[in-house]
């Protein structure tokens, strides 16, 4: 984990108030593992004091392979996929190429610690379950699983078609993509958990590993479904964060433990947890 001043290369608007922010960060990019996140600071704004947590969407080489430029094969660019929801993300959207910002990264335990990899190897297929901007946490895992030759499928639900961003980035890595929208503007109408449930029902003989990221309610429903179908399920959790460093204890969530359970920090013990470890009842 490093705290660096990084330069904006591009801040590309996508549909539905989403943006893809590319930052030059040659020291941090090579350290990133799938499922980790960054804390981005927007200096100079006392109304946005705290850093904002953002999943690391992707890391890229400065120059595409084969262009003859660039130092070796190490990535130098970190990409964040984000949606404007408030003041901080609004300020992010105002970043222009050449602007500088401060970023703490990479943070947290990602999807592919050894203990998780074992579960992926044992599965016939890995099912990615994304709700809205939760998609941002899943691209790097999908890439690395594809590299390991593991079959994958993406279930991606959002409010409307405008929010279904990034699907094309997954195409090279996942066998099939199933989309759903709450307003019915694309794919199956309703929540993504419906087609997911149908898939689990129709393939009872298969072993799945679920990787999910999205709103609490979607994660809770996915966790419950995974439990019912006996599938291991990993969830990438979100919570308000004060520091990302494990010191403010602002991001703690209830997890199973002795007695009434205990608390673990999303920024440090997470953001990825086994779904059955999380105490979902609370919210």
């Amino acid at each position, binding site marked *: 984990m490093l705290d660096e001043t990084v330069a904006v290369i591009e801040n590309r608007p996508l549909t539905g108030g989403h943006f893809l922010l590319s930052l030059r960060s040659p020291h941090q990019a090579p350290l990133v593992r799938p499922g980790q996140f960054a804390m981005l600071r927007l200096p100079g704004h006392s109304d946005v004091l705290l850093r904002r947590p953002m999943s690391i969407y992707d890391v890229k080489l400065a120059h595409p392979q084969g262009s003859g430029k660039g130092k070796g094969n190490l990535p130098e660019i970190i990409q964040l996929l984000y949606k404007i929801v408030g003041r901080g993300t609004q300020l992010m959207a105002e970043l222009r190429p050449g602007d500088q910002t401060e970023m703490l990264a990479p943070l947290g335990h990602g999807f592919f610690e050894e203990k998780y990899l074992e579960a992926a190897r044992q599965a016939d297929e890995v099912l990615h379950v994304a709700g809205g901007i939760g998609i941002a946490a899943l691209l790097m895992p999908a890439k690395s699983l594809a590299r390991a030759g593991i079959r994958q499928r993406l279930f991606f639900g959002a409010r409307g078609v405008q929010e279904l961003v990034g699907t094309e980035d997954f195409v090279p890595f996942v066998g099939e993509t199933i989309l759903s929208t709450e307003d019915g503007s694309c794919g199956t109408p309703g929540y993504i958990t419906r087609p997911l449930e149908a898939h689990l029902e129709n393939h009872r003989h298969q072993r799945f590993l679920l990787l999910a990221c999205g709103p609490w309610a979607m994660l809770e429903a996915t966790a419950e479904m995974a439990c019912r179908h006996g599938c291991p399920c990993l969830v990438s959790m979100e919570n308000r964060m004060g520091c990302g460093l*494990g010191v403010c204890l602002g991001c703690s969530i209830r997890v199973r433990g002795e007695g009434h359970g205990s*608390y673990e920090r999303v920024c440090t013990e997470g953001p990825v947890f086994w779904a059955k470890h999380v105490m979902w009842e609370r919210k």
Partner: protein
Amino acid sequence: MKNQSSIGLARNQSREPETEAAFSPGLEIDLAGIHFQNPVLTASGTFGYGQEFARLIDLNKLGGIVVKGISAEPMPGNPAPRIYETEAGMLNAIGLQNVGARKFLEEKLPFLRTLKARCLVNVFGYSTENYVRCVEILNEGEGIDAYELNISCPNTRCGGMVYGSDPKLTEEVVAASKRVSRCPLFVKLSPNVTDITVFARAAEAAGADGLTLVNTFVGMAIDVETHTPRISNVTGGLSGPAIKPVAVRMVYQVCRAVKIPVIGIGGIASAEDALEFVIAGARAVQVGTANFYAPETSIRVVEGLRAYCQHHRTHFSSLVGSLRLPEDQPPASIEY
């Protein structure tokens, strides 16, 4: 690597000529019999147990580290959401989640002991006996330089707040803790009182070796769409730049009311902020919330204080309480 952040440093930190660099700013201080290499500490609850920052800053450049509040037994803390950002500050209701005194000694203290920064342990309990018990356990540890008795946390129902808002209880818990304490005892005061000097005097009378102030201000934020409080505990402690002017005023008042040293805390994000506290009378300062968004703040404050002293060719100690008041204003009067 880092550029100068805008919340950052005092205007005075320009490159100094050789002669000024040779001038000794005298940042080393002695407080309550403890020697600090400089007057900048990190505030409890905002710096973990130190180690979390080891990869980001040079901990050996700090004057001291005040660790997260420790209780005799481990505490789980409050449900989420625990924090909410407000204008130039944040509300928190962590609920004093901590590993407990024994585990602190075993797992956290050995690292802190290796540092040049002094180690202060923030202590809290839910009864006088419980405070005493915690101090007794901590007494067994090697390498604790001082205790900071937290009688002011607003987030535990039966916790410190009661002690911090009743001068008799303040005296009781300070006296009882002082009796068993093996090292100097600082008392951290609550700002959530009508007259903080009453509590400052009570702590001094009960034997406190120093005072630290302020802790967070009880605050509240509401989501107007859902009509619900923004944090699960309903109310939380406000910290950050937003509280600085009130904290400076309280330090000013307390420094005039007691003889024991005062450490100033509240919204410090730059050397200039720290200097306000010092000029108001604080002998040292603590950096809190700024650690979250700019981990290098405390180091920048040390460097900024040094640069300021060199630039003005003044010794740090002569800055303490150097406030100049308008001539017609008697020093002790506070007009609201």
